[in-house]
């Protein structure tokens, strides 16, 4: 049971995350593209998604990081990188282009697999290939 508890927690977090994305409208590419369409008929709704998420996460993260260790793990696994590099900027630019092209980012795309729509399956398969390719380029 002790071994299963972190896995169960992780599963529940994924479930909540998916529910949040769906309720917020992030799983609708038309809403995402409408938000990015600042020069056209701009739809500001998704700014409220980020606002709602950060309103919770900012204070929560600040409090959590004052704890000595997580509830069910030995230590916090936080990114160790600091400073800006060209790779971060280039990667974010490519990511944004793909995001604007289809209106999907990784979380919503995986959640949308439940619909079994061909387009979503194609997107996720290509996304995983892109992740693996990126890992190779990291070497």
């Amino acid at each position: 049971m002790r071994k299963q508890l972190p896995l169960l927690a992780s599963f529940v977090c994924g479930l909540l995350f998916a529910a949040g994305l769906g309720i917020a409208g992030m799983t609708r590419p038309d809403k995402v593209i409408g938000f990015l369409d600042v020069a056209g008929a701009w739809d500001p709704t998704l700014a409220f998604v980020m606002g709602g998420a950060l309103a919770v996460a900012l204070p929560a993260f600040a409090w959590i990081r004052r704890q000595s260790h997580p509830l069910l793990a030995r230590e916090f696994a936080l990114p160790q990188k600091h400073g800006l590099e060209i790779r971060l900027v280039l990667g974010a630019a490519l990511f944004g282009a793909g995001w604007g092209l289809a209106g999907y980012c990784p979380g919503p795309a995986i959640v949308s697999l439940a619909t079994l729509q061909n387009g979503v399956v194609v997107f996720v398969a290509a996304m995983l290939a892109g992740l693996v390719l990126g890992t190779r380029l990291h070497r």
Partner: protein
Amino acid sequence: MSGEFVAALAGGALIGIAAAALLYVNGRIAGISNICAGLFPPVHGGRGWRVAFIAGLLAGGLALSLLYPAAFPAASSASPLKLAVAGLLVGLGARLANGCTSGHGICGLARLSKRSLAATAVFMSSGMATVFFTHGGNP
């Protein structure tokens, strides 16, 4: 119309709760692209919790499609080629940038990370530029 903003805020808050819970309980960052990338070799930081979280995302998608089908569009009108290119860009870009909308845009900003702030500014701008230049086609 205002109902959409409430849903966006509530969904966003739920996303924030899920991200905070994963950090508090398992000490992990809820960055979807990194969770997925870690499934493929070289694996570090364990696979189990990643699989569990993604299973949660998929289960959440299934629950949404049953309880709140409006979360998903009827079907994507985008061509499979466009979706494949977009997916590849999203995966590759997220890997190079070490994070995506969730890892940088929510968790990173909540940690007040400068790298995440830069990445978020770049992918938002790049997404907006992409929509601006491709808006001949509907999503």
